[in-house]
């Protein structure tokens, strides 16, 4: 069958937008895994909280996008701070199982707490932009999507700058590469872990807040995305940030194409099929390092 170029471009742009959201979530999950060596099961709910803050801040601020986004990001940073000092800081080294239970508990409390407070009824929020957008040929993209994509790209540039150009971020990479060597050069592991959790929460909150004016906001929204994010960090290579971001973008585009040309049901499965294929062919993930020379 002939493929309409405009239709394909439309699908690709939609997929890119979705992929950026996936990449934000996966990057945060990979960062927390690398630095704290835990899997954060509450990661999806961090996104949901970001979306709810945006959904309440937007009408309160007269629909102004950027100020509402700033409120959502601030709230996310605060949430990350509380999450770390309230719970994660109390985990000891090698407390992997306990970390699963603790973060799962937090996930459930946030999920059902939110449902209790705001009901499970999906919320729709509008922004100052409404449905206005830009038109490229016959393709129309709403401003909310354009700005969301722009913010996500800025977030990645900022993240790269922090991780590779500042001592603050370099210390996060250092702890995830070799904890003992990080102590050797005077790093305080607790401060680095707190910084990583706050940054990861803000990335996730950004994803949620950017989704709020585009999709429905509901308590369960994070759950749908969490397991996909797990698949993404495995595809990318556990602990590899660039791998997680690349896998997120690729999955977004792939899902969009599949949804456009096949039954939509396959869209949800695609990521997991890729994950299983990667695990069979390249268990360390696309960007993972097989083994590091040790001496």
């Amino acid at each position, binding site marked *: 069958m002939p493929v309409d170029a405009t239709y394909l471009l439309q699908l690709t742009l939609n997929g890119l937008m979705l992929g950026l959201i996936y990449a934000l979530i996966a990057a945060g999950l990979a960062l927390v895994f690398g630095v704290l060596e835990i899997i954060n099961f509450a990661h999806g709910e961090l996104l949901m909280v970001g979306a709810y803050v945006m959904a309440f801040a937007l009408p309160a601020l007269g629909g102004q996008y950027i100020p509402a986004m700033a409120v959502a990001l601030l709230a996310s940073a605060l949430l990350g701070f509380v999450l770390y000092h309230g719970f994660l800081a109390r985990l000891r080294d090698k407390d992997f199982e306990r970390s699963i239970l603790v973060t799962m508990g937090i996930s459930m409390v946030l999920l059902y707490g939110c449902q209790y407070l705001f009901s499970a009824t999906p919320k729709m929020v509008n922004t100052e932009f409404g449905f206005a957008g830009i038109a490229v040929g016959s393709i129309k993209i709403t401003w909310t999507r354009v700005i969301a994509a722009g913010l996500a790209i800025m977030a990645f540039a900022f993240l790269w700058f922090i991780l590779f150009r500042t001592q603050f971020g370099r210390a996060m*990479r250092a702890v995830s590469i*070799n904890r003992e*060597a990080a*102590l*050797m050069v005077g790093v305080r592991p607790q401060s680095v872990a707190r910084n990583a959790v706050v940054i990861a929460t803000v990335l996730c909150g950004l994803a949620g807040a950017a989704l709020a004016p585009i999709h429905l906001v509901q308590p369960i929204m994070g759950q749908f995305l969490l397991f996909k994010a797990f698949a993404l960090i495995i595809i990318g290579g556990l602990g590899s940030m660039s791998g997680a971001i690349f896998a997120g973008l690729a999955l977004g585009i792939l899902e969009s194409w599949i949804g456009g040309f096949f039954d939509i049901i396959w869209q949800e499965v695609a990521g997991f099929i890729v994950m299983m294929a990667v695990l069979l062919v390249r268990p360390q993930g696309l960007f993972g390092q097989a083994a*590091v020379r*040790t*001496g």
Partner: protein
Amino acid sequence: MACALDIRALTAGYGDLPVVHDFSAAIEAGTVTTLIGGNGAGKSTLMRALFGTCRLFAGEIIFLGVPIERMHPWERLAHGIGLVPQGRCNFASMRVAENFKMACYSLQRADHDRAIARTLQLFPALKPKMSVMAGNLSGGEQQMLEMAMVMVPSPKLLLLDEPSLGLSPKMQQDVFSMARQVASIGVTVLMVEQNAHGALLASDTAIVLELGRNVLAGPANAVIRDPRIRLAYLGERSTERLS
């Protein structure tokens, strides 16, 4: 010579298990001291106790007149104590230059370049390797890199845990002469070594540790001749090498 490090009745270990018992020693400034002892004697635990990365049960550690036993590792680093742990301890997937940058973590930003340049004068072999991934260096180069990284903030006490482990005899000699060179600029060096013979030849003082206790301490050239030590740690071949 002044006493740089005074360890008094130190008991340290992991969890509820003390490994080092009631250990006391006084180490003079600007000397090289080697700690020898069999497997499980508590040598590495003692090094960790001095840097603050294992549990302290009792005792005091006085470094240049300041009690440090309650300090965190980063506070001890700020007081001039550097530890090169056993095994590979660098950032394998960072380039050597970035490893040096991380080694500056405890310094002010304005001092980074100067500190790195000064350390490279001591370790010139690392200069051409700056853009190599640390994990791709040879074992000996990685050991040099780790010593260099700890030297970046100019420690006054350098703790080396098995610096010659897994290295060729030539590289082992290089590591020991590096320890002497570091001591010659006024740094106190305390090292743990399996290669007791090579390490003792490069040392001023030796401490023998057995089952977590200090059983013998003295000038390295006397310890190396002690018949009990020769039998336990040096083997017969050392007789020929000495003569």
